[in-house]
């Protein structure tokens, strides 16, 4: 019954979608409305981006500039979505033990956080010599690479999201190799939750700065008054970078938070 209903719904939806496909522009058509605007209308925003990004922001990577500047408002909320996901997963899944319960069991060590029980009791790291050694090499490289991606989002593909994911992965790798505890020892639970919030705060805060220069929200050009270098264009470029840092912070910590919670069913101990 459910399957029949699903089939009917899917067929109808598909038919409606395909019905419109005939009117679509050809695949790869450079003159389709998204690519070059409606004939007779104004130029499409995409052409505007391509032509003016460098002029406006001195950022060669148009995607980065559009993401963090022209449509920075979207991206702010995108970052907030990530934060939301992190918080929501925590709220749904995390098993919280009260302090008194913890004390009564007595077996937990409280190295990490007063309230959120975490433990690194099993010390599995010892038994994973190969993996541990490899990690020791790979993790710094991965983190370096993550920072590179964040920093190099201006002239090449990259940016806060991508770099943040790589950074997050490095912590996950640490957890995979040395147990969750070893990763949590480096990035404690209350830390990563705060870091996630801080990332969004940095993003929104940079946007808010421009309000004090009587410019609109997220108008990084206003920061030229603060930075004193390179005029508005460079200020935008720097603004974009600052924003990307915030994004990276949030992404890193939420990636790790998702992993930590999902892999331990919210217990944050034992591990895999």
């Amino acid at each position: 019954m459910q399957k029949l209903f699903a089939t009917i719904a899917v067929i109808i939806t598909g038919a409606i979608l395909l019905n419109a496909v005939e009117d679509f522009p050809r695949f790869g058509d450079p003159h389709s409305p998204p690519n070059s605007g409606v004939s007779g209308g104004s130029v499409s925003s995409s052409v505007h981006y391509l032509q003016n990004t460098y002029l406006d922001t001195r950022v060669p990577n148009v995607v980065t500039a559009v993401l963090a500047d022209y449509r920075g408002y979207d991206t702010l909320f995108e970052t907030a979505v990530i934060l939301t996901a992190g918080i929501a997963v925590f709220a749904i899944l995390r098993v919280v033990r009260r302090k008194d319960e913890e004390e009564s069991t007595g077996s937990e060590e409280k190295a990490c956080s007063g309230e959120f029980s975490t433990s690194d009791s099993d010390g599995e790291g010892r038994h994973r010599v190969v993996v541990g050694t490899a990690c020791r090499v790979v993790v710094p490289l991965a983190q370096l690479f993550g920072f590179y991606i964040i920093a190099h989002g201006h002239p090449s593909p990259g940016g806060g999201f991508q770099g943040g994911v790589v950074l997050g992965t490095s912590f996950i790798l640490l957890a995979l190799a040395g147990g969750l505890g070893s990763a949590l020892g480096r990035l404690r639970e209350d830390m990563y939750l705060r870091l996630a919030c801080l990332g969004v705060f940095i993003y929104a805060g940079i946007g808010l700065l421009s309000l004090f220069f009587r410019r609109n929200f997220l108008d990084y050009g206003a920061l030229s008054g603060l930075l004193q270098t390179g005029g508005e264009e460079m200020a935008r470029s720097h603004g974009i970078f600052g924003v990307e840092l915030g994004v990276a912070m949030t992404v890193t910590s939420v990636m790790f938070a998702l992993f930590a919670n999902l892999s331990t069913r919210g217990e944050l101990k034992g591990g895999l």
Partner: protein
Amino acid sequence: MMEWIKTTIVPHFNFWIYVVIMMLGLWAAIGKNNLIKKLIGLSIFQTAILLLYVSMGVKEGASIPIVDETMGEAAVDFMAQGGGAAGATAFPINPDLFANPLPHVLMLTAIVVGVATLGVALALCQVIFRDFGTLEEPEILNQIQTIQDDV
């Protein structure tokens, strides 16, 4: 028939593919009983939309939307000389050389949203499994029917 395929499917093959993939995902999201399978369907469904957007931004003969600095500086000089007003020489940045950046930006957002949704959904699955000991929807619904709620 061939003619129809040539005029309708071939120039838009990417859209046909996206619709088919998306419908597969949608079917799984609605029709499957296992919650994880539903999620897989949902993910496929969301990912297919990425295909729709990204293929909108494709231009024949265009490259990635990164304006290299020499071209950019040329444009800056061009503008500095007031070239925009004169219009004698062409503007140095030819948009036809670069793919449309906007769909990529949008899809970056969509990817992120997809990941976030998936994360929350998996967390929910874990909690549901903890509570009910199963991930099969009919069984869960049965259990809900039988228990008096514990609010």
